């Protein structure tokens, strides 16, 4: 498997990052803006400034989102509103579905491949790359954007994310050295052998 682009958040050298830019239509939570921002940076690295034309490689790019708990800030906001009997914003309907922010990225960049969202138990990067390899091996995608966002305890605090664009059908040879982008370091460097039993 080859890593074609790679971006991390907070950016290298910054322990605490500023909040990601706002994302129209997504409120309350930093999750959607973070996903859109880091995915956009990664796609920019791969394709340049302009969104690629449909029918190019982006049209056969899938997206795998890997997040243990997903958008917790939105989930808490909904739970609080329901328990208090407050009105629930219709905007939250869209952003509680993890596929919605992925759709936002897909529309912007013309990504017409499959969308897979997973919650990994122990090996987020390994599970994400395994899903990506499976989509490519099945012929549903040529490249896959793998996004790994996790929210901090409070809004915007401690959010972290990694985004990669990968190609290839096997994950066994994927290591940090395959990440060709120099400013990207991946601590969870190899696909754990135990995870190969799933896909």
């Amino acid at each position, binding site marked *: 498997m080859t890593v074609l682009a790679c971006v991390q958040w907070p950016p290298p050298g910054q322990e605490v990052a500023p909040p990601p830019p706002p994302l129209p239509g997504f409120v309350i939570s930093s999750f959607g803006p973070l996903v859109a921002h880091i995915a956009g940076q990664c796609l920019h690295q791969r394709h340049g400034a302009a969104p690629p034309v449909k029918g190019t490689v982006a049209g056969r790019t899938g997206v795998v989102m890997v997040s243990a708990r997903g958008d917790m800030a939105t989930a808490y906001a909904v739970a609080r509103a329901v328990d208090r009997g407050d009105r629930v914003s219709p905007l*939250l309907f*869209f952003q509680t579905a993890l596929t919605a922010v992925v759709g936002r990225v897909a529309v912007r960049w013309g990504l017409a491949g499959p969308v897979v969202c997973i*919650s990994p*138990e122990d090996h987020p990067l390994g599970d994400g790359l395994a899903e990506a390899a499976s989509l490519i*091996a099945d012929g*549903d995608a040529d490249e896959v954007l793998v996004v790994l966002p996790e929210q901090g305890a409070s809004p915007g605090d401690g959010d972290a994310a990694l985004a990669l664009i990968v190609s290839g059908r096997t994950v066994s040879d994927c290591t940090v050295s395959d990440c060709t982008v120099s400013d990207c370091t991946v601590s969870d460097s190899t696909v754990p052998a135990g995870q190969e039993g799933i896909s």
Partner: protein
Amino acid sequence: VITGLAVISAFGRGIPPLLDHAFAGEPAFTQVTRFDVSRRRARAAAHMPGAPVLAQELASTVDKACADAGLTVAERASCPLLLAARADPADLRHQANGRPPGSPATMAAAIAAQCGLSRLVRAYTGACIASSTAAAAAASAIRSRASQRIAVAAGYLVDADQFALFDAARALADDGQVRPFSKGRRGTLLGDGVVALVLESASAARLRGARVLARLAGWGRAGDAHDVSRPHPGGAGLGRAIRAALNCAGVTASQIGYVNANGTGAVHSDSSESAALRGAFGRTVADVPVSATKSVHGHALEASALLELVMTLLALRTGRLPVNAGFIEPDEQCPLNLILQRPRPASARYALTLNAALGGANTALVVAAP
């Protein structure tokens, strides 16, 4: 191949209530009693009585599916679990009291431990395509020989948070019925669904003399890249998912004898799906019987695709195609060969089951008689 199955729906536990009522087109929607809906625009859902707990229902359903497949203790111990579910909303409330929240993956790990399954687990969280994506991932891993046997489970129980969200977005039918592909449809309604399947390679099943219920013969996944909240009006992504699934199964559209449609009862979604089917089937779309069984069991969100896969499998096994309930009159945007009024007899060998999620994510699965 699929060798084990267990299911819970608003109709009750197991397969017989589905065959007796869901197939006949008797909707399970009633006024919600599980939580307060007095402030909501819509009031109905398809839910079981009482307050079932998702993790408990999932564990018992996975256990039953493994027993149905006849798995030994050793076979269970080497069987990974793929789970499609969101974290239990009750867990969010506990977290507010200082306990760390569970994730869908930790729920999967606990269920696997309870059922004596392998520690290899993964949870799928992609909303309405979560469980079809899990089923496709399992089938793909088995076909590529990475695994010989995988348990796939999915669960959603109608809850106050999702009800409030769907209601706020005016996505729920305020007339208390889901009317897929019908003129006058007013939206969807939520429904309980807890489902588990055991998938394994044909050779592994043969070796242990397992009964084969059906084959998951093909799978396709594709995105619309069109809009966050509305599907592509021509069904572009779903059409590509259908073609990919047919190609994967090695069958043509003319060999498909039944389509279990996504059919949420939403205006744009149903017309988009009709366009996808017309595009993928061409002129033969008029020949293929279609029904959307959300019209009887409701929309089970993360579990919807697996519940509909079970309905599709039962249709192939019984030779009865389930009814598309709630139909008032034809919609020119949805010119499909709908199964109305009573189940239709059929001798289909192959069937399609379709699903789509917000953001334009689509899946198609081809189910084959054994």
